[in-house]
């Protein structure tokens, strides 16, 4: 019996183009017959930007892909078109921005990869941390920050925090490469806290240097 599941994927993924009504792949950005822009389909952020799924991602590659797609899909390319085409291009550009913003930041990229693999790490909200070493480290850093009395001392702490962030990103890369998702999960939580500490150090340094003049 032929069910939807047994249809070849390509046939199941055919949709009528909204403009010329002919068949168009659900993944296509433009109809190959009439050229009309299509709605952004379901796709993970890597697929959307034409990138291999993985933690290691060169910023230059990400930018090149993102700019390349935006050049074709940004609403500025559709300013004189019909309202429907303008709306679709806005949806496409919005989806591209979402993908770009998620993949650009190592923390969000790591959390996203874990989510794709079925693991959840909440990077937006403060969750509970069950890693006593990490908690201790964070507490010590906060104390040091509170006690640092000059811009130089704070700048030193900021530099240390930024080094820690860089080291953690490196470790994350190794964990993902080894397919060690548990390790990657722990490191992602750690990266979240280290990033917060670096931000706090930066904010404190900015406040201090602004008193200079």
């Amino acid at each position, binding site marked *: 019996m032929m069910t939807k599941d047994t249809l070849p994927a390509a046939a199941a993924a*055919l949709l009528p183009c909204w403009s010329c009504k*002919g068949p168009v792949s659900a993944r296509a950005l433009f109809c190959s017959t*009439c*050229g009309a822009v299509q709605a952004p389909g379901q796709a993970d952020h890597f697929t959307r930007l034409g990138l291999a799924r993985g933690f290691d991602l060169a910023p230059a590659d990400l930018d090149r892909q993102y*700019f390349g797609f935006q050049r074709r899909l940004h609403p500025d390319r559709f300013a*004189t*078109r*019909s309202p429907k*085409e303008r709306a679709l291009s806005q949806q496409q550009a919005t989806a591209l*921005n979402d993908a770009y913003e998620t993949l650009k930041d190592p923390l969000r990229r790591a959390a996203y990869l874990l989510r794709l693999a079925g693991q959840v790490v909440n990077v937006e909200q403060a969750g509970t941390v069950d890693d006593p070493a990490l908690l201790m480290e964070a507490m010590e850093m906060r104390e040091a920050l509170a006690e640092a009395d000059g811009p130089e001392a704070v700048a030193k702490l900021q530099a240390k925090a930024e080094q820690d962030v860089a080291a953690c990103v490196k470790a994350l890369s190794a964990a993902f490469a080894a397919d060690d998702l548990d390790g990657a999960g722990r490191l992602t939580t750690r990266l979240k806290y280290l990033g917060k500490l670096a931000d706090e150090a930066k904010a404190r340094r900015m406040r201090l240097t602004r008193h200079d003049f």
Partner: protein
Amino acid sequence: MLLQIHEPGQTPDPHADDRGLAVGIDLGTTNSVVALAHDGETRVLRDGDGNGLIPSVVAYGEDGTVLVGREARRQLLERPDTVISSIKRLMGRGVADVKAVAGTLPFELDSAAAGGMVRLKVAGRTLTPVEISADILRAVKARAEAAQGKGVDRAVITVPAYFDDAARTATKDAARLAGLEVLRLVNEPTAAALAYGLDNGAEGLYAVYDLGGGTFDISLLHMEKGVFQVRATGGDAALGGDDFDHAVAEHFLAERAAALGHSTLTSAEAKQALATARVAKECLSVSTQGEWFIDLGDQPSRHALDRATFEALAEPFVERTIRICRGVLEDAGVTADEVKGVVLVGGSTRVPLVRRRVAELFGRPPLADINPDEVVAVGAALQAEALTVGSDTLLLDVTPLSLGLETMGGIVEKVIHRNTPIPVALAQEFTTYQDGQDAMLIHVVQGEREMVDQCRSLARFVLHGIPPMTAGAARIRVSFTVDADGLLTVSARETVTGVEQQVSVKPSYGLSEEEMAVMLRASMLHAREDMELRLLTETKVEAGRSLLAVKAALAVDKDLLSAGELAGIEAALAALEALLSGTDRAAVQAGIDALEAATKIFAERRMDRGIRQALAGVSVDRLDQTLLPDA
């Protein structure tokens, strides 16, 4: 049949020739400028005397006449109570916002107006900043039409990057009143970068420092191969060269009061002191000292000022801009020495103190080889051409201010953070805090502070009909959408029952649709005809798309039709094409519908063929064209 082949998504607007010109407009606090681009060559449109600047000053006569520009500015001193300047500072402002600064503005506010948009009393009329800005835009439009001998009906209009949602909406409304379709609102620093980058082939990280009459913006942009990506932006929508003038005017008035023994000030004195201060500021940008007179009736006063004193008066304002610059560098995570160049925009960057402080901050002399008064309009013109004719350049802009919602205790929950690339859509879930709560107030705010009362309120609306549940059980999903103009739409939805409400964020300080309708009717532009023309154009664009789509389909799948069926479709095509030369919108729409009906069976057969081919394992390359970005 011969078929034109275009890049996907790049088919040209088939009726571009029907339209008037699309220009770029810098609607400034002090001056406005209009420019036109053709094949990448730009031209500032000037009056008969070669002036590119149109003073953003409007004089209202008792007889209903409206005068804009140089002549209006001349009357600023003679009839100060009927002449309006610097109206941009009030765009999108509410009555409460303006009270705080009322003393420093040369306007008489209509105190009767409660809440909502601020209104001005002038020459026996009550006008909103939107209407006054529309009068300026009408003059700008007229200038462009006179210079080109052709109608102008579309424009890219620039706004300060730091303009909030209310001010952006007000600008768009003003254009609508003036009979201009806004192709895009572009941030001023971004427009300047476009003009600058395209002229100089600049690549790398650039800062645009834009100090105008009433607004300050700083943007950091990454430029490469025609892509202008805004990395971070900041500013102050109420900081500019006007503040220098005010400081100098206060200095003059204090001297005058001391010399003449006065203690109270008339509005006329304040205006003349301001005008004198402006002249003094401009002089002191080239010379190091001078003497000026405030001459009212029989009471002249003399005021000497040197550059050092002027700079001491201006310093606090320049210092504020430098602090904002540092903050934006921090936001972008870069240091000043990573910035390859600093572009100066805005007349106030002619002040030597400003140039010195900017050079100190970035450790390099700033670039100002394009006239800082005109560079924004030039960029806007380039973008207008890019939007209407096509272009390889791409502007990727960001939200200047965070957008969020009020939560319990007056705390702001940010939904979209500042410096997020637009367009963007983000949603967040909230819940009820009382058992059986059946409604929720959605209060949308804009700003960086944690508490609601320190942010700008954009809109409030109530989501009704939440089914009774225990506290915390309802799931209310609030979605924020910001389009490429930077304009926000908010919708709220209870996800269990699907109760939904949507608002374009407009009410708090904006004009309601009804108010707009009244103004459009009252405007001299025959608004109804104007609106009808716009609808006709839209319908023709839609007809053009429909024609191209059917022709493209015929070129590929014509064999699916019998001769009779094909003749039917071709007749519908020809009928619609014939209608395009007319002006009957309903007929064009009927033609579109008829073509749709005539191709219904054709469409079904094409889908069937596609699926059959896919099932048979025929290569679906043709169907599966995805886009490969340029390597």
